[in-house]
């Protein structure tokens, strides 16, 4: 069952923020993630980890918002890490070029 969850953050002393994406990365969830990422970047975070372990579906709006996060991170000299990607999500990001701008773990 697809459910939307609020992203969660876990900060540590090395200026890394972990943001957990929900199960469906659409406009609503994407905007929450983007808002949270911007807050973290503005507060000096240099490494943004987006955890996709719960994410089953990512639509075009979700992709576009992730591109915005990548763009914002570049402007803040920060790195974006995509973690726990499912195979189909990874294929989608490869196909659209997102993986060229992030580190996959």
């Amino acid at each position: 069952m697809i459910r939307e969850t609020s992203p969660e953050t876990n900060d540590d002393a090395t200026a890394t923020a972990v943001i957990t994406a929900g199960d469906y990365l659409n406009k609503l969830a994407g905007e929450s993630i983007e808002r949270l990422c911007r807050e973290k970047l503005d507060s000096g975070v240099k490494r943004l980890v987006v955890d996709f372990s719960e994410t089953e579906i990512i639509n075009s709006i979700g992709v576009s918002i992730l591109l915005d996060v990548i763009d914002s991170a570049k402007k803040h000299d920060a790195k974006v890490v995509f973690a726990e990607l499912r195979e189909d999500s990874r294929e989608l990001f490869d196909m659209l070029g997102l993986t060229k701008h992030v580190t996959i773990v």
Partner: protein
Amino acid sequence: MIEQQPKLIHAFGALAELGQEVANKNNFQETIRTSLHLVSGALGIMRGGVARYSRFGRELNMLAVRGLGDDFPLSLSLCMEDERQFLANGLNAIEVASARVLPFFQVYSVSIDAKGIELLVPLIIRDEIVGAMFLGEKATGEPYSTYEIEIICAMGRHVGVAIAQRNLMAEIERRAEENRKLFDDLRTTYHDTVKAFAAAIDCKDKYTEGHSVRVGKYSEIIANELDWTADQVEGAATAGYLHDVGKLTVERKIINAPYRINAKESAELNKHPAVGFEILQPIHHPFTDVPLAAKYHHERLDGRGYPDGLIDREIPYIAKLVNLADSFDAMTTDRPYKARRPAGDVIDDMRRNAGQQFAPELVVAFMRGMLRELAGDAKEKRFRRLLGREYMEAEGLTTTLRSALNELRPTSEMTRIDP
């Protein structure tokens, strides 16, 4: 093509979502913002913007932007040549690299190059430019392929339709507002004309100066007490203002006779309701009963009125209302042959004649309005303004009104309530 299949499936999904977004008629700004996300997310486009075209200013005004930063112009001007070329291009993407010759790309080359804008898609609906999409480089860093450009153009048509729909709605709203103002102007003109007529009627009769205006105001008070709609109240007031318009054709010496007029003069005077009807009938009134009020405002429930001796149900309701207002004013103003009657007498007269001359529920409404004002429950002191403070403060008036109201029971069997 086979290896491009997942990309196509993803892009078509975005196209379907875009169609739904445009059809949903959500908030326009939000629709455009979502559309830009869908186009960008469909093909992994790093940055871009959607602008609406203003034909009059010949400007592209940004509605939504992604990643273009604060220094990208929010409004971009086109010259006639740009406009002509964009139209000639149709709904096809223009590759910036091969269109440098156009004045538009020369004027904005710094901004366009700084943001890596690679494609400009004019949004053309029914041979008119409605907007444009600016699209930057893809996240893959690869150039746009032919089929990707086709997908972008297909999505552009949806975005163009959304903008064209919005433009159309704005035009409809503008025209509706224009019509509303015209209607208000017409209504004001109509009211002014009605009041001018009432003043003209009243000028003819030096003894009952202001009679038509007062009857208009009393009619309005009764209609308000009956909880009629604003339009109906306005109609009642208009009927009151114009009820005596037929008197314009009656000789001044008869109207102003300082004695009780004889039978011949009376017959002449009694023609005024029918004449009034003839005058008012050809005019297209916003309120249909106005001519009928003029014609029948001297009819009585018991059939002893004129010109046709109609009985209760045969008399238009508005005429019954104006009849009461007219009679009340006749009783409460000085006439050449008779001084005005004390307030208590007038109330008593109305009570006694309820069901004979007057519709009882109208008498009740009228008295209730008067009592409310005396009790201080009315917003305006309209009776006091029309009758004078002293008259309204006559001793025992409140008691007389209460007693009359207690006695009166609207006889619904006799009268029709609906206006």
